[in-house]
């Protein structure tokens, strides 16, 4: 599970460089996020632009990742592809996470458009 961390002004961006967060990948996703956020950054933006497919196991892993960060940190999402956006919308988890069109914009420190 390749995830890269890029630190920006106001957030740590975690870019998932995989096309799928599915049942076969959910545990490795969670483990990798835990490793990359061991220093508990205050704000983490999960950049999902490369992820074409996310199932309920993947959704559960994203929720688990948010819990792992603990109360001092915040997990936000960016660049959802249509299939991934559908899963968040249908399960209403789009009301739980802040979702940004673009990770760089989300982390630039500029005021948000919405």
């Amino acid at each position, binding site marked *: 599970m390749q995830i890269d961390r890029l630190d920006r002004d106001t957030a740590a961006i975690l870019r998932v460089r995989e096309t*799928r967060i*599915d*049942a*076969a990948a959910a545990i490795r996703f969670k483990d990798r996020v835990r490793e990359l956020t061991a220093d508990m950054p205050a704000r983490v933006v999960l950049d999902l632009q490369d992820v074409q*497919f996310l*199932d*309920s*196991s993947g*959704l*559960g*892993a994203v*929720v*688990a990742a*948010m*819990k792992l960060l603990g*109360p001092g940190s915040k997990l936000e999402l960016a660049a959802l592809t*249509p*299939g991934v956006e*559908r*899963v968040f919308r*249908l*399960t*209403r*988890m789009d*009301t*739980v996470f802040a979702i940004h069109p673009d990770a760089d914009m989300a982390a630039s420190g500029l005021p948000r458009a919405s």
Partner: protein
Amino acid sequence: MRTWPPAVFRVLPDGIAVTPAERTVSVAHGGVTVRLELAATATAVREGLATLRQALAPLGLTASDIDPVELVVAEVLNNVVEHAYAEAGTGLIRVTVRPGLRELSIEVEDDGHPMPGGVLPCGDSPVLPLAVDNLPEGGFGWYLIRTLTRDLVYTRIGPRNCLAFRMEIGSDQPH
């Protein structure tokens, strides 16, 4: 009316070689039945879904048709792997897709454990908002299946589970 031969795909367990001829099957238009057999492992499911997408592509379906089909079939297959065949470790799963004019009829069969109580989980959506610590990490699968399908029927015949459902194609539904 002409009957088209069924297209058969086999996605075998890890480590078993499959020849390209077995993997690449052209699908004729006009109501061909797509049959997929795969092992009940997470990696075989992933490969089976890719094969299914490949098999459905020549039917002229758009991404907005195929994406929900892949999602629903993934959820059903994951349940078979994680529950029906949980103790056995693996087993055989058969997926049959019959394209119609405006819908796909899909059946998923396995020889694993029956559904607890012989009925499908209700798949209620979680009532949000919840505090972060109380958010569920599972249980969304049946909710997605029930939301995206019609005529969902579970039957247990002898040693076999069969889940049958329909999914609309070619409409501008918001899903």
